[in-house]
């Protein structure tokens, strides 16, 4: 218990609790099951991105291009759905394969040309997105098949509110939870997961220890791509239209959320639990501002401030601890 409170996650959790209390005091409709389920649903695509970003950050890299990968995957899937009506299997498969493929291109460039991941993925962001805009002419896609809309509205269970409206745990949220569970299992219980931590902590040591760095690098960026593909599909389910510019621009929000959750940009640290908290904090901030009627223009300012305050607090705590350690046993 004591150990938990010395961890970064504890502060984020504290901030979330305090924020929730404040928002609820101002607008009680915040702290209702309905709002909670709604938040879980509408932030699930950012949450899925965040899992991919977490993997990349732990491995010591960064990926900026995931929003473009998601857009390409989502657009391709939509074109297929509109033209062929589609089936559920291919609807999942197309964005997944595109995501994995584009992620592996990222990994290959980073590994074989030895270009820093941030440069590579800024470049591929522009390339992937640019090609899509050229090919699509920036056209929005409407008229997704009915079954796709109905699928998105499935719920694991359904409740009814006072006005008779229905709400519940969306299938989209369930998908996010399942992915979270798988990701946690990979990170915690597989050699591959531990290898990703090892690689982020000390790349030369990981190489000497016999980890297959190329494979791990490929896996991490392909996994990021897969997450991006799924998140793109989920985004299409949520809004039921596909716009080329709907997701690009969200990169920094997601990275901020993951960093808020305790992942380090220098690699080697970060947890699934922290990432969930990071996304939750961003979601609550945004939702709370709407409920408190704060103009949405302030959103970016506040997110920026929260990131700085939270991260500096945890750095400050670490420095305090270092100060307390005794260098020399003075007699």
């Amino acid at each position: 218990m004591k150990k938990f409170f010395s961890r970064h996650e504890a502060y984020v959790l504290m901030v979330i609790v305090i924020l929730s209390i404040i928002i609820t005091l101002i607008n009680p409709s915040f702290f209702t099951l309905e709002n909670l389920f709604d938040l879980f649903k509408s932030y699930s695509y950012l949450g899925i991105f965040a899992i991919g970003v977490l993997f990349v950050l732990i491995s010591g890299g960064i990926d900026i291009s995931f929003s473009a990968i998601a857009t390409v995957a989502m657009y391709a899937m939509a074109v297929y759905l509109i033209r062929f009506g589609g089936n559920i299997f291919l609807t999942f498969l197309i964005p997944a394969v595109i995501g994995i493929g584009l992620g592996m291109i990222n990994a290959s460039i980073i590994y074989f040309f030895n270009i820093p991941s941030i440069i590579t993925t800024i470049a591929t962001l522009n390339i992937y997105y640019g090609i899509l805009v050229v090919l699509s002419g920036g056209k929005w896609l409407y008229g997704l098949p009915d079954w796709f809309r109905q699928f998105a509205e499935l719920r694991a269970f359904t409740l009814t509110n006072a006005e008779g409206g229905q709400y519940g745990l969306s299938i989209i949220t369930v998908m996010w939870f399942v992915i979270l569970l798988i990701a946690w299992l990979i990170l915690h219980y597989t050699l591959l997961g531990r290898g990703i931590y090892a690689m982020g902590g000390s790349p030369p040591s990981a190489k000497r220890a016999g980890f297959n760095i190329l494979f791990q690098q490929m896996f991490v960026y392909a996994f990021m791509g897969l997450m991006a593909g799924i998140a793109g599909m989920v985004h299409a389910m949520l809004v039921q239209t596909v716009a080329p510019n709907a997701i690009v621009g969200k990169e920094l929000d997601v990275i901020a959320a993951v960093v808020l959750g305790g992942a380090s940009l220098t690699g080697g640290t970060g947890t699934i639990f922290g990432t969930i908290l990071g996304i939750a904090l961003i979601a609550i901030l945004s939702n709370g501002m709407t409920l408190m009627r704060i103009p949405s223009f302030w959103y970016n300012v506040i997110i920026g401030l929260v990131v700085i305050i939270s991260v500096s607090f945890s750095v400050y705590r670490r420095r305090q601890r270092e100060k307390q350690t005794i260098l020399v046993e003075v007699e």
Partner: protein
Amino acid sequence: MTDVFLSMKNISKRYVGVQALDGVDFEIRKGEIHCLVGENGSGKSTLIKIISGAVAPDDSSEIMIDGQPFQNYQAIDSIHKGIEVIYQDLSLFPNLPVAENIALSQLISEGDRLINWKDTQSIAEKAMARIGVKIPLDALVEEIAIADQQLVAICRALTSDVKLLIMDEPTSSLTKKEVDALFEVVKDMQSHGIATLFVSHKLNEVLQIAERVTVLRDGKIVGTFPSNELDDEKMTMLMTGKKVEYTKYLAEIQGERPLLEVKNLSKRGNFKDISFRIYPGEILGITGLLGSGRTELALALFGVNPADSGEILFDGGQVKIRFIQDATRLGISYVPENRLVQGLIMPQPVHKNLILTILSKLLNRLGLIDSHKMQDSVQKWVNELAIKVPSLDSPVQTLSGGNQQRVVLAKWIATAPKILILDGPTIGIDVAAKSAIHEIIRNLAKEGIAILLISDEVPEVFQNCNRILVMHKGRFIAEYDAAQTSIEEIQNLINLSS
């Protein structure tokens, strides 16, 4: 020949423009403690890399392990044959727990896809039990002491069926006590039939532990000797190819008034009741083991780690040193212990490193750096300290240790300091370069600079200093007049106190 574990014949390695190894024959017997010594650039690290399979030797080379010849020798072959290397950086994962650090390589070699945390714990516990150490299993490696990290690295090597353990400079950041403990572990491993190859700079330690010593010079084998046939002096000669005479030097004190006087300086958890005086032109030595507080004291005088209480008098007047700027304004310069991290910007060229401390003196009327002034000043220091550089534009990391140290020295001497604090000025540089650095230090003292020489090598302070202060657990426990003491007397005191 059955008792030979590793036999290497005619090992050569040519890098672009450099013959790193040239026809080296080398062997290690089963269960022996063997030492590999040589100056920087003599080919030690290349040889280790070849043994570990990280670097492929040139074609003519022959490698036999356990009587079995190897071709296309790879890292995985060496691991399968029971060869483990502990590099100087230990190759641990600072962000992961101790248990995982120990167990990971075994888990990798077993090819398990899944991690069983109970197995991980028991692998780690077993390895620790083998050498009788206890380190908390769930502590992160970055949170434990360097000596413990070293033990973690050894434990990790022990998880496999190791036959030969290679340690690269294992003692460079350990205290005397920790070195002794490490040697106990090595001897214990020997009783289990594990051979150890040490690569070390510290000659006295080499002789303490090794059964045989192999000396390398300029990529060639000078010879392999039983350690009882060697002493410090003979080994130095074998390594350098020439006889290096150590001379004792007493600087001439210039002036009656102390340049710096420190009274009862204390800092909690760092040092306590430190008092001393230093005169212009004097070389004052501070020695003591790693962790005795000597570096913390130096940092306090330089304003990095200000003291909590006590007085500092500079040239008779009381001063406060709270920031580095306070110290530099007084004319105190500090050459840090770890030049790689704290002293130099490694990828930057020599000239850019040299001028860093004197930028404000090189400005022209517009407030920009005057390139002529810069060139002149750089050239001057390069000549004065005889820094060997291919070109002033070469990155510092391409220079040898001795030349790097000269660049750091030049950088601070250029500020025209009144007091120069040198913290371990010859750590990790070879014997010939060492005496050249000593010569520079003596010449600086002649110019009237007061020099505070901090070193854990007693011969170094003995040969260069007027007075020697011995530090232990944050306090001065003795002061010696260099003219009336001996290396043995000081060494004995240090050994007794530890």
